[in-house]
């Protein structure tokens, strides 16, 4: 073999090795989710195949006893409201900052900028008291307020886009008698579609997967989101790996579907979101 061929083989080998490392833990959990209680307790090894590949009983248990339906409902509600709010708040802020000159503009911008450096986990002890004092504790509004209020990255993304929209569009609309709100709502907002897609994807995934905030702010069982509901599997299903696995797969599945459908946008979203 030539040197080049050896190098190529090594490249493919490393790619296959990485894929195995990524996929194996997931595939095993998928297999486990299809096993019966006996099969998992018989200790036939994690890699053995389930007898019946279409045994979905664990999924029914997980979905029903794990209260996954209400979990998906709560997650969907929080997701829609907070992502919608983030889009509105982010685009309004970006519009105001880019299209107007006003006193105190620099300090206002600095406030947003510095906030981006403060990691949310560090201030939770004090944020908790504030959320409680508003009476939001143990309601779905606590995570919604926190997700909407502290997203600086989306403001960055919107700002980049607002800047690329020519000011002459605003001016001609203004000559036609449009006021600032009409301009924002009729001209700027519709042109922000690519930025909105990015923010919806990045924010949506973050909200769907977040554990910390719902865990701290919504201890009530009825308010479980998918993260906290799945976490509660640890208690009642303790050693029932077949049920826990089914729960985990139930939670991963929607992500996989969304990922497969929106791949390109998701990559772009993350590149844009993180590097601003």
């Amino acid at each position: 073999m030539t040197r080049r061929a050896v190098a190529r083989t090594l490249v493919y080998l490393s790619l296959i090795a990485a894929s195995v490392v990524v996929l194996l833990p997931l595939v095993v959990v998928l297999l486990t989710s299809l096993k019966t209680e006996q099969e998992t307790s018989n200790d036939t090894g994690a890699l053995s195949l389930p007898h019946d590949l279409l045994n979905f009983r664990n999924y029914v248990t997980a979905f029903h006893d794990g209260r996954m339906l209400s979990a998906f409902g709560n997650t969907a509600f929080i997701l829609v409201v907070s992502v919608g709010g983030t889009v509105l708040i982010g685009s309004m802020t970006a519009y105001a900052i880019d299209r107007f000159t006003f006193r105190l503009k620099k300090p206002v911008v600095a406030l947003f900028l510095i906030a981006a450096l403060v990691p949310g986990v560090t201030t939770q002890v004090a944020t908790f008291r504030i959320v409680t004092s508003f009476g939001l504790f143990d309601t779905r509004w606590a995570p919604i307020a926190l997700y909407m209020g502290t997203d600086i990255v989306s403001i960055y993304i919107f700002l980049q886009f607002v800047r690329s929209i020519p000011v002459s569009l605003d001016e001609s609309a203004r000559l036609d008698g449009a006021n600032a709100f009409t301009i924002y709502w009729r001209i700027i907002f519709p042109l922000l579609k690519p930025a909105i897609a990015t923010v919806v994807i990045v924010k949506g995934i973050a909200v769907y997967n977040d554990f910390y905030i719902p865990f701290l702010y919504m201890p009530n069982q009825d308010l479980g989101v998918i993260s906290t509901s799945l976490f509660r599997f640890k208690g009642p299903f303790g050693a029932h790996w077949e049920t826990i696995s089914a729960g985990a797969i139930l939670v991963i599945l929607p992500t996989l579907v969304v990922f497969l459908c929106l791949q390109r946008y998701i990559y772009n979203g993350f590149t844009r979101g993180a590097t601003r």
Partner: protein
Amino acid sequence: MTRVWRGLTPWLFLLVPLAFLITFTYAPIVNMLAYSFTDWDGLSPELRYTGIGNYTELFTRPDLFEVFWVSGYYLAASVVQIAVALYFATILSFDVRFRNLFKGVLFFPYLINGVAIGFVFLYFFQDGGTLDSVLALLGVHSDHAWLGTPVSANVSLAGVSVWRYTGLNFVLFLGAIQSIPGELYEAAELDGAGRWHQFRHIIAPGIRPVLSLSVILSVSGSLSVFEIPYIMTGGATGTETFVIQTVKLAFQFNKTGLASAAAVVLLLIILLVTWIQRRLVPDDKVDLV
């Protein structure tokens, strides 16, 4: 009248965002600083000023300070993570068969719910779980309790963190590499530069900003690890991290004052790291206006 109205317009747009920003970011920081000098339990109506008592307690009680060493495991893991991500981003930015498939496989873990990942890997490290079965398949019969001793538990958890976050670094690197104009490679190839030279002289400089961003994300991430160890071990067997400790202090033991001091220390460290990084690698893209 219209002038007043015009002056007010931007504030009408900024009213809600600023209200959120101040209520949920700045007010907590100010309060947290104030709490950190008291012995407040989070419940009683009065709080007693204790000066820097909480801070001295934090730095002199070894059991409280110990958690910082746990971050070392995650810091080491992020070195591995960045190296692996850089390697795969480089090879997948050239022509490789099934490129999009490999891209998807490598990135997907980043999108998975943290609790699900926690359970997947609890099973992975179980006695007779995935890892033991694979090792048995390879002829290695281990009787190792992977999450049983502090060192092996922390290494295992840091490994999960590599599994989870490599995809993000990988996609960021890939995006940066692809924004390098293709002519540069062609010119380099004409000059007879091999892959290594192309990497060294074209790719490495081209992705410097993203690389430095990844380093800072890794450092602050390593200091504020919470999810995976909390879900998998609950902080047992020496896997308690700084954030787990703070959450426990504040919400289980009602030591709001001490927890606030801990959070202030963490915040200061992260701000310091960010500041140093900005000094070392000035990034002109960051200015907002």
